[in-house]
């Protein structure tokens, strides 16, 4: 019987991390962080995470947002939130609003939903926008290196 109880406890623990969680009540939060490109950040396709945020990666972040790649909000503590909606507008359509805030440091009042390891934000109001504060191009140049076309650089 003890073995069975332990097994059931293990099952419960396992399922809590791996299986369905119904739509849940959100937590209201105020978060501050940089709006960023989640694909390059998670995949490492263009280098380490420090190289794919801030001014170094601004053009690429705009490209990815225009392509419908999910945007995130990266806090100073390194937490990434996937942003599903900003002030009533979905973030997958490459809207001018979404493109305009790429790489900016925002403070947002939002609803937070957590599911299967991810934190999802519905931003109800952008409280402040400090613009681009991470001047990562000082350390990394532009990432990717072709972000600025040769017709502009003269290369």
């Amino acid at each position, binding site marked *: 019987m003890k*073995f*069975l109880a332990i*097994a*059931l406890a293990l*099952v419960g623990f*396992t*399922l809590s*991390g*791996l*299986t*369905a969680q119904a*739509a*849940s009540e959100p937590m209201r939060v105020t978060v501050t962080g940089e709006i960023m490109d*989640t*694909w390059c950040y*998670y*995949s*490492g*396709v263009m280098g380490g995470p420090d190289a794919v945020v801030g001014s170094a990666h*601004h*053009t*690429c972040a705009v*490209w*990815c947002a*225009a*392509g*419908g*790649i*999910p945007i995130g909000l990266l806090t100073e503590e390194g937490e990434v939130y*996937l942003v*599903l*909606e900003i002030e009533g*507008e*979905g*973030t*997958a*359509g490459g*809207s*001018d609003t979404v*493109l*305009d805030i790429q*790489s*900016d440091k925002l403070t947002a009042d939002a609803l937070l*939903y957590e599911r*299967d*390891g*991810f934190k*999802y934000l*519905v931003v109800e109001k952008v409280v402040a926008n400090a613009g*681009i504060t991470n*001047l990562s*191009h000082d350390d990394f*140049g*532009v990432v990717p290196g072709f*972000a*600025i*076309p040769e017709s*502009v*650089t*003269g290369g």
Partner: protein
Amino acid sequence: MKKILLILAVSYLPFKALAADAESQARSWNLTGEEKARFSAKVVDILCEVSGKCAEKCGAGSYQLGLLTEGGKLIPVNKNGQTSFNGAVSDLLPLCGKTVEVDGLLVGEEVPAKLYQIQLIKQEGQDWAKANRHTKDWKEKFPDVDGKGPWFRRDPRVLSILEKDGYLGLGEEADKKFIEENY
């Protein structure tokens, strides 16, 4: 003891459905934490799934879509199989609400928080198809855009933002200084 083993086996099933898959035909991209994964899942509007707030037609392209596995796990899909900054909404939107087979890469370091890059999709009764609709949809969305070169160099939304804020996002003077010092 048999019961215990059975229970543990059942608990393992949802995880097995997403483990590295020998049947996968996905191409490696040498990405962080990359695992090939072929599995069956329902295409869902992520916001609808997590909050119950469901837009018409799965958001009609404005909302991020994901995959809900048979084990009930919600996986965000970040990327399709194309190489140039293309998301996966164009590939998934026509299938929203349907259960399909997908093949691609789970990406990222932290388990269970891995994103998915979808490379192939199979609808019931059909052959596997490449997940590469984004560029075609982009051309339909911007039929008047002329010129050659990749879509992201010609996209009017992108060009407008870059003209306003510059390639670094810091304005024209910052771009000029950077280019002078580095090219």
